[in-house]
């Protein structure tokens, strides 16, 4: 397979059990480079668990995960991150005591090549400061720069979460319900933000808001009870009988 046609992310018979219950029951999925892929499904379907498997938070019980063709088996989250995959969390996961600026700066350090250096002064690096400020500008939090991240409003914290996720320049971005719990205007703001910051990147997103999903995604996978019951273009998935029955009809109705 040449690099241009190789999928960015490939799941192959992926399984995960917690104790006796199998939560992910054999997932096959290939997500192309530069694709925006949405994963939808009812509560408890295993969407976040799937994210946790891909990013190395949990070990899988079977199957393979390949990022740009490299098997991720046995790799730690930080190793996977260094391979160019970055994620956000369903429940905001930031550094609440550090300032907004520092949150972003910390997420830049590795890719900027500082590693574990104890001989560079972070504040002396113009490159680092400018890159962090550019991210703040992008996520619209420049005015909040020096506040502790913990005091930001919910929507602002979600924006920061996205900022931290994309700051390192990963080319595969995974967002777990980025607009959950947001008002309409806040959702619009976050969707615009996602669109802006993921240009040219592979985006994998879990989302409940169908407006967001059909607006952003190139392709959609429907995960129900640990299995993907359909994958395809939004309009195909929308008209899929199985999906209608299992999930989407109810969700679309609830949306109206």
């Amino acid at each position, binding site marked *: 397979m040449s690099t241009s046609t190789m999928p960015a992310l490939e799941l192959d018979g992926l399984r995960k059990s917690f104790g006796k219950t199998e939560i992910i029951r054999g997932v096959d999925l290939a997500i192309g480079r530069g694709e925006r892929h949405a994963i939808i499904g009812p509560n408890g379907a295993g969407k976040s668990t799937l994210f946790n498997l891909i990013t190395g938070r949990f070990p899988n019980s079977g199957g393979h995960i390949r990022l740009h063709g490299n098997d991720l088996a046995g790799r730690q989250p930080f190793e996977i991150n260094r391979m160019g995959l970055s994620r956000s969390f369903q429940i905001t996961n930031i550094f609440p005591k550090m300032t907004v600026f520092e949150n972003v700066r910390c997420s830049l350090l590795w890719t900027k090549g500082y590693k574990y250096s104890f001989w560079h002064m972070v504040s002396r690096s113009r490159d680092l*400061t400018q890159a962090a400020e550019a991210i703040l500008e992008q996520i619209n939090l420049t005015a909040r720069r020096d506040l502790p991240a913990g005091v930001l409003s919910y929507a602002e914290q979600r924006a920061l979460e996205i900022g931290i996720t994309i700051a390192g320049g990963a080319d595969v971005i995974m967002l777990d319900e980025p607009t959950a719990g947001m008002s309409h205007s806040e959702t619009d703001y976050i969707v615009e933000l996602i669109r802006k910051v993921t240009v040219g990147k592979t985006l994998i997103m879990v989302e409940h808001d169908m407006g967001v999903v059909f607006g952003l995604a190139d392709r959609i996978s429907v995960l129900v009870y640990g299995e993907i019951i359909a994958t395809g273009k939004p309009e195909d998935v929308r008209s899929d009988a199985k999906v209608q029955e299992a999930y989407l009809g109810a969700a679309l109705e609830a949306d109206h």
Partner: protein
Amino acid sequence: MSDISQSAMKLPGITAANAAPWLIATLFLLVLPFIFSANSAITIMNQMAITIIFALAYNMLLGQGGMLSFGHAVYLGAGGFMCMHIMNYVEDYSLPLPLPLLPLFGGIFGLGLATIVGAFSTRSAGTVFAMISLGIGELLAACSIIIVAFFGGEEGIPGDRTYGLPFFGVEFLQQIEVYYLIIFWLVLSALLMFLFSRTPAGRMANAVRDNPERAEFLGYSARRVRYISFCASGFFAGIAGGLLAINLEILTGEDLGLLLSGEILLITFLGGVGFFFGPIIGAIVFTLLKTVLGLETELWQLYVGALFVATVMYFPGGFAGVLMMHAPSAKLGKLKLLVVPYIKTLVPAFFAVMGAAGFFEIMFHMRHAAVGEEEMTIFWTTFNSHSVLPTAVTIGVTVVGFWLAKRSAPDMAAAWHASITPNKPAGASAGERPADSQAQGGGS
């Protein structure tokens, strides 16, 4: 970003403003022996300076890295004992190793031990880390009794710091010469530890302390970040150990024991783990309590313990936290609002504390003084510790003082809140930010 804003962008590096505290502190340390020139004072100051280095090193773990160690004295001890042996070896073989360099070897041995222990103890920061540190502390304390050749058993290992050739004419015979040697290492170590906190490894130590999981998803191994802080902390603890060896010229198992490990935890927490300078205050206050109060009363540890418990319960930020609570008031120029309410609460509170201390002293004297010796003197007053009146007075002072303090405490709290709140009409510009963020927060 435009060119103008780029060139105008300030990079906080070494500026007059952030070099000033260091220069002032150094100058202060240099002239201190001229103010307190008694030999006893210099002895206390030497002890204090070494404790400051140790406490700052400890806070690299506790405050910066979120690792609670119950056995950090082993790294101080490792450095100290090694320096003692080097001192003796160099004397025996007349090697040209100048004394002022010796603490560096202490640091290297502290670092060496930390690289070994840290390799398995920094896997997590929680209870497991704390328990391993306690275990290692216990282990080395046991070794110090068993391995007599290295630790000297009960007698310890003595050394002679005046072994070598004079260092530029200084022979380190006198305490004052040792003082200047110690503060050289104090300023150097403190500066390096401060700078460490500003490096990628230091910033990520904070990040891992607050949210290790998120740090892992940013490319950092939380374990490696902890390990680096741990090793750095062991290095500076070792330097403190080397200085201790030079200062005391004898080390025993106590100098790496669990008691000292507990003491440094207490000192660091008392001073405040949230700010770089917190442990410095803690070390100064504790050394003063131990030496000055320790001379006055056998019960000094009781008072230090009570102070510690009160700090943990009411001021988890320690002395530094209490000080920094007043930074906003100072910025707004409103500190004077606090003077009267503070006097109204703190003066009765002071008397309550003194009354309680008097009560404990009387009880202690009654129980423990030799039979027939009923006279005692506290607060410049001599009386019979077995009579009822003094006890009644101390109880009375405590109760009344406490009651008065408690009654005016709400006013004090209110005054503090008023002092950190910008004035409505005049402070419009200063108040813009909080008001703005409130509006945003309310809107979501």
